[in-house]
């Protein structure tokens, strides 16, 4: 099974969150793969590029280091791209769901559906109506 990290899981991973690391260890030992949806990669890189472009002399090197570290993390994980099937899922969500949803959450969910993957996020309620329960896990608060 492929597990897709949402942005808040990347944050917890980079912040050495103990339960996230324990869940990660268990899943990897079971042979599962951890990957990043392309929209999460884009969000990370856009943020780092923006920070670097806005940096002054006092913080340029610090932002450059953060950018390089982020690039290294992204290179380590496989990026899972949105496909035509994923776009179809996304469009159906936009037509079907009546509660307000965030497009990037829907893109993460659609990527998971198209690749039969599980989304790992703390914001499980944001994915309500977007994913079935068995495609959603919260490694920050729950042990699997």
């Amino acid at each position, binding site marked *: 099974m492929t597990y897709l990290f949402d942005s808040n899981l990347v944050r917890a991973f*980079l912040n050495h969150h103990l339960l996230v690391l324990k869940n990660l260890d268990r899943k990897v030992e079971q042979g599962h793969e951890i990957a990043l949806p392309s929209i999460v990669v884009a969000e990370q890189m856009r943020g780092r590029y923006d920070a670097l472009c806005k940096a002054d002399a006092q913080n340029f090197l610090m932002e450059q280091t953060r950018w390089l570290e982020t690039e290294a993390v992204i290179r380590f994980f496989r990026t899972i791209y949105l496909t035509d099937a994923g776009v179809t899922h996304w469009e159906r969500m936009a037509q079907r769901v009546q509660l307000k949803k965030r497009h990037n959450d829907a893109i993460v969910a659609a990527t998971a559906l198209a690749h039969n993957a*599980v989304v790992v996020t703390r914001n499980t309620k944001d994915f309500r109506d977007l994913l079935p329960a068995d495609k959603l896990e919260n490694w920050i608060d729950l042990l699997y």
Partner: protein
Amino acid sequence: MSTATATITERKLFQIQVFHYPAEQGERWKAAVDGLPVQAEGDSREAVLAEVQQQLTAVLSNGETVSLALNGTAAKAEPETAPAEAGVGRVGDPNPPPISEAEMAEIEARLRARGFVHFGVFKNDPGAFDLFDEIERQRDLRTFGGEPVSE
């Protein structure tokens, strides 16, 4: 267990937990809706889903959803955010045992051996996480369904 989706009037969608298990003659099926007094049991998946849909329609036609403010007055239901639900997502242990330093060291060693060397890379750099707050803010600005977020 599997999950099915039922559509009631006005295209409201419900996640339904569907179970089946062996019985003396064939198998039995059960279906239930989280958070609502709706469940059914029968000889086929189709039968229990039809029963659940019928019960859901009945339950919803006799009920309403309100939000209660702290002073006890009914407030307008908030359509933008789904209510927090303990049952959203796969069930895990909400009270995991504490992780000892020794256990954590073993976990870290196993992860590093598998190439996971970047965990905690920003642990001592709180400013590095401003990015993630901005990501959430940007996500809030681009939505569909319900009322748009004011900028």
